[in-house]
């Protein structure tokens, strides 16, 4: 059973990646979304590169990423047509589907956040002192965005008016995680000793484990309705 589930997740994950590759416009759209948001922020501030205070630099970056995540992950259930979803559900177990979607969205968010960081640092300046720690924060944040928003997107897709619901259901739930990530990222910017970020690291991992296991248990009920 256990290896069966693993295999199933692998196949579903591959399916998601192949699907995304074939419809590249969605992925390119998300990249462009990140790019335009960065440009909008850059021009609204109307400043030279590097003139933004590290605190604002950090907050702005994560807000852009939050909105990117909401939009990128929201399509994980909305993009598929009902008929295809039904067909998929007859083939695969709900646990396999949710785990594959979470993993896929985490990968997607890592790519988007990574590219976003590159572009953001070029345009708005790069105050990072501990790049490795910041990258670790990005990996953890991608997982957190993905675990939280994947189930929320499943919930929102069941109700109409999805984009508003997605935001109001998701934002308060993601906030504590986002605060942890921002604090950890700030430590990376200031180049503090890594032991200063241990608390945030452990809390983030714990929140991720809780949210993933709750999603794993709840998704079958959501899927049935």
């Amino acid at each position: 059973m256990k290896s069966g589930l693993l295999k199933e997740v692998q196949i579903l994950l591959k399916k998601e990646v192949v699907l995304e590759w074939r419809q590249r416009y969605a992925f390119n759209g998300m990249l462009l979304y990140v790019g335009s948001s960065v440009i909008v922020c850059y021009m609204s501030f109307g400043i030279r590169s590097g003139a933004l205070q590290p605190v604002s630099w950090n907050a702005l970056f994560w807000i852009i990423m939050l909105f990117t995540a909401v939009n990128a992950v929201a399509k994980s259930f909305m993009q598929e047509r009902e008929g295809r979803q039904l067909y998929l559900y007859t083939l695969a177990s709900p646990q396999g589907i949710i785990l594959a979607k979470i993993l896929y969205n985490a990968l997607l968010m890592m790519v988007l956040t990574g590219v976003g960081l590159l572009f953001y640092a070029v345009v708005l300046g790069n105050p990072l002192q501990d790049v490795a720690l910041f990258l670790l924060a990005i990996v953890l944040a991608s997982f957190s965005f993905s675990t939280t928003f994947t189930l929320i997107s499943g919930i929102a897709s069941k109700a109409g008016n999805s984009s508003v619901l997605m935001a109001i259901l998701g934002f308060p739930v993601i906030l504590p995680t986002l605060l942890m990530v921002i604090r950890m990222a700030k430590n990376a910017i200031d180049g503090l000793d890594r032991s200063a970020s241990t608390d945030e690291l452990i809390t983030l991992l714990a929140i991720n484990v809780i949210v993933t296991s709750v999603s794993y248990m709840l998704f079958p009920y959501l899927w049935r309705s």
Partner: protein
Amino acid sequence: MEELIIKKNWWKALAIALLGYTLVGGLLMEVPRLAILNETIRALYFHVPMWFGMIMLLLVSVVYSIKYLNSGKPGHDTVAVEFAYAGILFGVLGIVTGMVWAKFTWGDYWSNDPKQNAAAIGLLIYFAYIVLRNSLEDEQQKARISAVYNIFAFAALIPLLFILPRLTDSLHPGNGGNPGFNAYDMDSNLRMVFYPAVAGWTLLGVWLASIRIRIRNIERIQEDRVMG
């Protein structure tokens, strides 16, 4: 539990007695004289029990959401949603009483305290729960999906309420090296009113929820009669 809430009445008398005692004792009994706090320390009996009550009510709501997912009985969903409503009411009262108290002791209605922020986020989660419920048409789907969100949100709320405030400095007593609450804790005068106040306010919340549950049950029975 449902039987106890709906059929028995002794706990309502207990709630009235406890709250009467809280009002009289809370306003008249001796309290410690502390700098800054002074007489506002009496807000302890009216502000802090709101949070205890809210957590209890929301806990009941989550338990009934889990029960609903297992059983599919509409009655369980009614209990879950009405307890959530009562919990939200307590949360709002907790924030309002807290803001008034904060104005007199900390100088501002809102001072970016982690617990204040956590309370605000918690309320946002449950407001979203209500919006989600109202956006779904089909009764069964409404019950099932909102139960899923209720459990999910509660699981996400726990780290918020218990971990975050401990990681940062807080103006609230008992966190970030602020010794306030230990000082009250030692005071038996405060305890004598505080614990009954917590029990009394929580029972009042259960009472509120139970009245609304009974109304909803009657409505459902009437609907079934019309349909059948």
